[in-house]
């Protein structure tokens, strides 16, 4: 029964993809669609193989920017969440602006970041950090504050210090929330890296997928554009899946309410 389910989950999307590519290729043969508008799957594959070294190198550079920005967002988001949970004054003063910042589109903020940090990797990393920071801050703040009152009563009974309450109850309680925030952010990191490279990835030695998307659209190299889009999406899937796998392992202890 389970095998049948697995086959349907894996096999059906693969069959659909193959059919889709076949229809696309046949349509290209029949109507001779100009390459500049819509290259055929075969043309995309051929060009990708020719430029495999460039594309893989760009993928690694984008992944690197995404990982550095994501790591910074994790550290800064946890620190800010901690600060918001400790100080009501800071939370009430700053938190509304965090929400405001989140509503501003990243492409609107990106030029400012480029002015402040210059073109290149620094700006790209800052853009990734900004786009992935908010889900981590909100989740960590919630996790640190939404502790079961019974557990806090327990700590009061044993006259626990604020330091002991933080390290023995609040921080462990916030881990599942941090992981949820990280899962949401992990998908956003690739979006941030590609936008950053698209806008600030020029004139540097190491160019990522965002730069390739920009250049291929400027030069009407639609095959490279398709390949870059595919690799960006694949990178996003890898990022989200990796964080989900780490979180699954990490949260094995925290599933108290889920299993019974």
């Amino acid at each position, binding site marked *: 029964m389970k095998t049948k389910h697995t086959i349907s989950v894996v096999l059906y999307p693969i069959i659909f993809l193959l059919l889709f590519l076949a229809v696309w290729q046949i349509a290209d043969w029949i109507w001779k669609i100009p390459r500049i508008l819509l290259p055929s799957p075969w043309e995309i594959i051929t060009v990708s193989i020719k430029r495999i070294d460039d594309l893989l190198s760009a993928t690694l550079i984008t992944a690197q920017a995404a990982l550095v920005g994501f790591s910074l967002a994790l550290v800064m988001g946890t620190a800010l969440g901690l600060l918001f949970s400790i100080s009501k004054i800071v939370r009430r003063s700053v938190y509304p602006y965090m929400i405001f910042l989140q509503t501003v589109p990243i492409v609107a903020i990106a030029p400012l970041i480029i002015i402040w940090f210059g073109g290149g990797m620094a700006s790209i990393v800052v853009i990734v950090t900004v786009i992935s920071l908010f889900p981590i801050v909100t989740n960590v703040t919630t996790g640190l504050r939404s502790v079961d009152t019974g557990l806090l009563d327990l700590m009061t009974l044993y006259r626990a210090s604020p330091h002991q309450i933080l390290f*023995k109850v609040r921080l462990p309680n916030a881990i599942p929330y941090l992981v949820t925030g990280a899962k949401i952010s992990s998908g956003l990191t690739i979006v941030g890296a590609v936008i950053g490279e698209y806008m600030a990835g020029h004139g540097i030695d190491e160019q990522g997928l965002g730069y390739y998307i920009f250049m291929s659209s400027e030069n009407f190299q639609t095959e490279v554009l398709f390949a870059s889009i595919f690799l960006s999406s694949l990178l996003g899937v890898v990022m989200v899946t990796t964080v989900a796998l780490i979180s699954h392992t990490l949260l094995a202890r925290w599933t*108290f309410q889920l299993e019974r």
Partner: protein
Amino acid sequence: MTHTPAIAIDNLNMQYGGATILDSVSCTIPAGQWVSIVGPSGCGKSTLLRCVAGLTNPTTGMVQLEGKQPAFVFQDPTLLPWRSAAGNIQLPLELEQPSKESWSDRVLQVAQLVGLADADIDKYPRELSGGMRMRVSIARALVMNPNALLLDEPFAALDEILRQQLNQELLHIWQTQQMTVLFVTHNVAEAVYLSQRVIVLNANGTVGGDVAIDLPADRDPAIRNTPLFLEKTAAVSRILQEGL
């Protein structure tokens, strides 16, 4: 057993949002005695227990405790899900003596006292049944070797068979550890079976009655069918009805 008051509650009043929760509650609990508090829902039983534990400050009145801070068992086991049973049991010891590295002997001792098997103490709360989780919670309360134990309807969520089994085990622990116990319950029969005294709280937060339960000290489940047990249960129930 001595008769020095372990817990003295003096004219306790508690008001919250304009409503009176506790009204002039006074009583003394001698050291080593098991006293149960019964009353209708919302009469302030748990609030009274929280005032005794120092978790809630009364509006007026005073609670005096003899000796160490009493241990508290909540209605829910309130376990840390990211810690094993042993980790939960040793939490109070960690909080009191952060520099010490191992408490395994004391943890094993109380785990055995409450009927936790060696294999269970390394399990996480999600791997334990409701009854086992409550045993961990009781073990955690006992690990500091308290003089007094405050129990806030700890068996309310358990089935009747498990409830009676844990009643028996708790009685055994009380007899061996010589503790003072203040036990809040909805169940009149349970209160009479376990206690030496039953204090009845009225719906308006006043004390409706204080019934001495002069049953034999060695409580056997068969005692539930004796005329004296039924008489005491009826007496407590009558006071409860009058106080509604």
